[in-house]
């Protein structure tokens, strides 16, 4: 490895190749990071379009635009595309761009595998999206694909869905291996583990989570494949299997998966808040241990998704208390973010706005999560819009605001230009108002009993649903403004200095903006 990296040819370092082959064959972490980010943004817009179909249908009670069968395909594909196509690749893209710059490495540890893990994604999502045009339709069983809905009763396209998940899973696993190898082996001399920026720390832990649970996801879809095509009975009661087993295996993957989608955002926010508070992060060490604790606990709470399947009382109590325990390290984090801001010299540029909204709104999602963790109460909330409100509060202002905050924070480093601050603040306020309008009323209709994944509903839910739909349209349309802001920033603007934020810390601000094609060919000095 070192023979490749330790070359002393920095004096005649070459730039990128020309033409499309640059992108197809690239092994450069910045190119691959950019491709990940653009891909995830395309998937975000596509998944968002499906969400618009859902909200348009739910604008009024009754069936207006789509049939229930198609509506089910929309909810399923929206969830799958957003989870596996938008949020996860966006964080891998951020890791590709920023982890080597933050730890003073010249590139990722395994650059060729890096290229392969990106190019698997268009293949995976090409397969998945193609199911929308197939006879019998796309998968329609919800993103959780519970058996036997997805096995005995699934459409023919389920097999394509299974292979798409396999490919996306392989891509994630390779990405995770690459990130771990980079962080453990390519840190600049002097960059000890406890000096690493928090984004690097949270990604290291996330990568271990990915390696632990993505193979389990691959296993569960493989069992589905065997049940569908090879006559096994993992989830088929007639042959001695059990559908509840599916839920156990799925959520053994699924619960750590939700932390995979939020921990990198925790890391990014933990760097952005100190930068705009002009104070070092409060409680760095406790942040690292809290992240580790959340990751560790995430393996022992999966059955809180299954309180109503008939698990024994002792099981419900165990999973209830274990779930509530996660609030402790999460509370430590929120406390640290708030304390970092306390008596700081705060300014409110777009990254900081998104980061503050992240802290407040993610906490709301955390509290509704605590409500759902109470087993007896969950019998009322289960499969209602309250659950939809909860996980959208942790994913939209959680994961996605974390990505927006990161994007604005590092755009000057990526493009060499400052983004348009007025437009970015407009993007923030439109997103903030839109998403709260869309998701807050869902708490109320959920508590009143509106079930999730239905195209029609009782008249009494009509007003709140109309508000939700208006908010969703507003949030959706605003993302086109984000696309415009990014394109504008890529094409030009006020040139960005090496360190555009005066409170920012870290090695990535020691290289010029835009970051040269090759950085840290000689490891930097870390004090």
């Amino acid at each position: 490895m070192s023979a490749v990296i330790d070359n002393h040819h920095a004096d005649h370092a070459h730039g990128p190749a020309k033409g499309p082959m640059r992108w197809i064959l690239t092994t450069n972490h910045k190119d691959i990071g950019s491709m990940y980010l653009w891909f995830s943004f395309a998937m975000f817009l596509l998944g968002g379009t499906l969400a618009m179909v859902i909200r348009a249908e739910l604008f009024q009670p009754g069936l207006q635009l789509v049939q229930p069968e198609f509506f089910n395909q929309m909810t399923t594909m929206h969830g799958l595309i957003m989870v596996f196509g938008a949020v996860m690749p966006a964080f891998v893209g951020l890791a590709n761009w920023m982890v080597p710059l933050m730890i003073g490495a010249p590139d990722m540890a395994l650059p060729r595998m890096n290229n392969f893990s990106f190019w698997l994604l268009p293949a995976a999502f090409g397969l998945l999206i193609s199911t929308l045009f197939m006879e019998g339709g796309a998968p329609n069983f919800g993103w959780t694909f519970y058996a036997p809905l997805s096995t005995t009763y699934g459409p023919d396209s389920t097999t394509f869905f299974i292979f798409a998940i396999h490919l996306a899973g392989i891509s994630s696993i390779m990405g995770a291996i690459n990130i771990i190898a980079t962080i453990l082996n390519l840190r600049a001399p002097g960059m000890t583990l406890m000096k690493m920026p928090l984004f690097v720390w949270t990604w290291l832990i996330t990568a271990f989570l990915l390696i632990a649970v993505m193979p389990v996801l691959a296993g569960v879809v493989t069992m589905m494949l065997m049940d569908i095509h090879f006559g096994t009975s993992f989830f088929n009661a007639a042959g001695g299997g059990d559908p509840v087993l599916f839920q156990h295996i799925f959520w053994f993957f699924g619960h750590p998966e939700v932390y995979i989608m939020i921990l990198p955002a925790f890391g990014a926010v933990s760097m952005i808040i100190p930068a705009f508070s002009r104070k070092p992060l409060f409680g760095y060490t406790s942040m690292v241990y809290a992240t580790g604790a959340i990751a560790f606990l995430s393996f022992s709470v999966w059955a809180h998704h299954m309180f109503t399947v008939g698990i024994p009382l002792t099981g419900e109590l165990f999973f209830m208390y274990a779930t509530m325990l996660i609030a402790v390290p999460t509370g430590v984090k929120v406390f640290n973010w708030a304390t970092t801001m306390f008596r700081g010299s705060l300014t409110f540029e777009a990254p900081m706005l998104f980061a503050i909204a992240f802290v407040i709104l993610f906490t709301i999602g955390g509290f509704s999560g605590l409500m759902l963790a109470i087993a007896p109460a969950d019998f009322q909330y289960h499969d209602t819009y309250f659950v939809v409100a909860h996980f959208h509060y942790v994913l939209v202002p959680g994961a996605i605001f974390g990505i927006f905050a990161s994007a604005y924070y590092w755009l000057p480093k990526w493009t060499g230009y400052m983004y348009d601050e007025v437009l970015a603040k407009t993007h923030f306020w439109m997103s903030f108002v839109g998403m709260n309008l869309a998701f807050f009323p869902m708490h109320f209709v959920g508590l009143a009993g509106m079930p999730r994944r239905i195209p029609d509903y009782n008249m009494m839910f009509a007003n709140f649903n109309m508000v939700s739909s208006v908010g969703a349209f507003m949030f959706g349309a605003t993302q086109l403004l984000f696309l415009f802001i990014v394109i504008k920033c890529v094409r030009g603007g006020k040139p960005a200095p090496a360190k555009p934020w005066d409170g920012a810390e870290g090695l990535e601000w020691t290289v010029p903006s835009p970051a040269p094609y090759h950085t840290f060919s000689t490891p930097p000095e870390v004090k």
Partner: protein
Amino acid sequence: MKAEGLSTASLVKRLLLLVVGMFAFGFLLVPIYDVMCQAFGINGKTAGSVWQGQEQVDMQREVRVQFVSSNAEGMRWSFGPEDNEIMLHPGEARTVNFLAHNPTDRVMVAQAIPSVAPSRAAAFFHKTECFCFTQQVLQPGESIEMPVRFVVDPALPNDVRRLTLAYTLFDVTERMAASLDLAAVHTN
């Protein structure tokens, strides 16, 4: 780059090993799940909870046992219990018949899957004889009376006054065609 620690190649090897291990663990969850369900008598699984029947009949208590039957998708037999419910004393062995009829014009094989509700009572429900222990083969138009003999354990928690034994009947003709020699049955 670093003097201490593993080389990238051996680090990647270990991580790949972890990936393979976790993939295998996913499949290992299948037997673990079955063992857990049987050990704790959860999920309505009663199989394997053999009871020696040495205890006294508890004449002080009466428990209502209800019988529910349903057909899985595509199963066309008529299938149901002779009595919808019985009252019994814990410790007392009782037999209940289920009736099945094959209205189709082909030989069919069925498998009944039992479940006991509430699930925490499943461990106290002991079947000493059950048609669900084997598969049922019915000729076209044939009817059959299928007994299930069971005892409710006197150790059943006091607050459980009603038990439901539910059977779902599955058509396993195609599945069994491979292993059983149904061709011989067809020629009859």
